[in-house]
């Protein structure tokens, strides 16, 4: 919890910038993705025989306030690890962008 408190304080203190974070959560490569398989089969049945390696994951978009983009990234990294993804079976990646830019 110490980490969060730190960020929380950081945010209270200095942050006045808004960032849009986009997080993509996917199953780890070695983990079976039944959804991906079903979607791939369906795409092929629809005639898209040129598709392969379909994986279905989660996409999370959020706005956060932070002092600077590095701080924002750190927080998004942390929340992705702690809540947005399940590290036992999932990987995540994210992008951060200042709002209104």
């Amino acid at each position, binding site marked *: 919890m110490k980490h969060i408190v730190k960020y929380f304080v950081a945010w209270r203190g200095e942050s006045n910038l808004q960032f849009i974070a986009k997080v993509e959560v996917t*199953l*780890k*490569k*070695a*983990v*079976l*993705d*039944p959804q991906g*398989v*079903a979607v791939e*089969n369906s795409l092929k049945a629809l005639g898209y025989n040129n598709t392969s390696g379909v994986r279905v994951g989660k996409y999370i978009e959020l706005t956060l306030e932070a002092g600077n983009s590095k701080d924002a990234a750190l927080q998004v990294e942390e929340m992705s690890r702690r809540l947005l993804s*399940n590290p*036992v*079976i999932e990987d995540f990646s994210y992008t951060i962008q200042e709002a209104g830019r």
Partner: protein
Amino acid sequence: MDNVAWRELGLTDEEYRMIVEQVGREPNLTELNMYSVMWSEHCSYKHSRSSLSLFPTCGPRVIQGPGENAGVVDIGDGWAVVFKIESHNHPSAIEPYQGAATGVGGILRDIFTMGAQPVAFLNSLRFGDLEDPRVRYLFDGVVAGIGGYGNCVGIPTVAGEIYFDPCYSGNPLVNAMCVGVMPKDSLVLGKACGIGNLVILVGARTGRDGIHGVTFASEELSEESEEKRPAVQVGDPFLGKLLMDATLETIRKSLVCGVQDFGGAGLTCALTETASRAGTGIEIDLDQVPLREEGMQPYEILTSESQERMLLIVEPGKLAEVEKVFQRWELPLAVLGKVTSDGNVVALYRGEKVVELPADSVAGGAPAYNPEYREPVYYNELAKFDPSVMPPPGGFGKALLKLLSSPDVASKEWAWRRYDYSVRTCTVQGPGGEAAVIRLRETGKGLALSVDGNGRLTYLNPYIGGMMAVAEATRNLSCVGAEPIGITDCLNFGNPEKPEIFWQFRQAVTGMAEACRELEVPVVGGNVSFYNEVEGEAIYPTPVVGAVGLLDNPEKACSNALGSEGDLICLLGAPEVSLGGSQYLKSCCNKVAGRLADIDLQFEKRLQEKLRLLIAEELLVSARDLSDGGLSVALAESCLAGNRGAVIDLGRMDNLVMQLFGEGPSRILISFKPGNRDKIVMLSKESSIPLTFLGIAIENTLIIKSDDDIILKLSLDEMKEAYGEVFSCIMG
């Protein structure tokens, strides 16, 4: 060979010596891996086998006892019921959703493997204290996973039980049970029969799922990348459902001679067990196994636990028809090899023979251990505790509300409304009753199903706790009017290599076996889960009993809900109770200690018989077993179920705490129309079963009096709030 290899694979030097002797040479690494998984506790039951032989496994109705994928019991009219329970504790501790889901998928396959149409799921769950966010995460994930798989495959989840105690914090228990039915003559066994028959794999592709304990010191595998690391098994209920339908179709059409699901130890287990059971051999080509990942080694292919796969043994002439069945659902099918006569399991990989092992040795050659056992110190210490010094803080009403709102007792609707319990349109009584009741469309009869276990009681006295588990599970069946015809058990314990743990195990199994004998109900299958420990701390010894009963007429199934105002309420059975180990002590006084009430199995048997008779004669409105929380909780629950109140007079009593909250076996709360009173009195007298008149059903309020003093008065709404909203509050 470097002797590190087998030790790293969990085999002892002595076991390795036995392997060399049985094979007649040193096994290669692939072979050693196969031994490692098959001679693991999970597959070989090496610490439990000799104790399990205490169970009575025969009976006039038993068609198949332990030893196959599931037990089979005759239910008349040419039909049989097939059932088994299995644990998925460790996977659920790591990934609760998938752990529970694959547990359900695994037990489902055990049932349809035999040729039975699955008709119901049950589950028994244990978690730590819900104050802990990780525990809440596990609880929510497990419930979601059970529903996620069961709902999707379209088999109703009709009953279960959930308890909480800090001892399960890092090691939750997830025991899943499945029940199926089939015409007696379509039973298929997991045997690789018929030399020359084809060995076929159907279903999912094989990936690196759940290849655990396989830490290789060899050079070829030393560069294991991140991606090669064993992966959590993920269930695919959609595929599971198609596989079930297609497999059952091949069985109905008599296209297969043997069927085996893939459980723990994957291909290795399926191949060696089917060959060993049939006294044959099998030769397969690993290159034919459809893989999900590139570069899988033979040992990985052979020990992968990828879900949703089945092994079929098929006569060559029937292959085309089998293919047609699986093609309808676009299910992958691969011919791996054939049945041979030499008793060996042989596997080829890229044209080379990588495995050649005697099937009997791999599947059944593991040693059986008789571990040391010793009575733990706590046992006598805790039994000395005198609970009579624990009066209810704040009065009886407050204590009852406290009990009703304790997670152990409170309504589990928050969990079971997430399970589809009415799909298949056969559920006559779903979750929330004493036992679930499903009707059998094919014969017009009914099955009653229940799952029970009490770790706390078993901890305090494993011998009595074991007996209680069997007695309670069967008593629940009798409460709906069903005759118990067989049980399956899941034995969840700590590390059996510790003498105190093995003592718990041995005592519990002895008690269970004795109860089964006295109550004349055979054990036809089950599962043992050892090593339920975190950092050396074991869970309570938790044997769980899944019981199956037969009802001639499901329309006569008795409920546990009070009926109309004016109905009489009585206690049927033995009045002896104890506060030792009671839910009251735990929930209201924060104490787990004391001596348990004894159980008289002969009396229990008579009581259950009489109860069934009363129900068959349609003399009762409701019947409820007294368990956690004793009389007070049973009364409250019956009131809530029937949306009725009751006025109860206990007469002159010295120890009201004991009367209201004490627990003991062989006690049933019944209610009936006043007109049936004489008949019920006569029938219970006939078998010398005490019948105590308690009171009558009224509107809206539960009132308990002792000698004209009102000692407890609670409105239905108060009780409903305590009982019904706990989980929504805690879990959101």
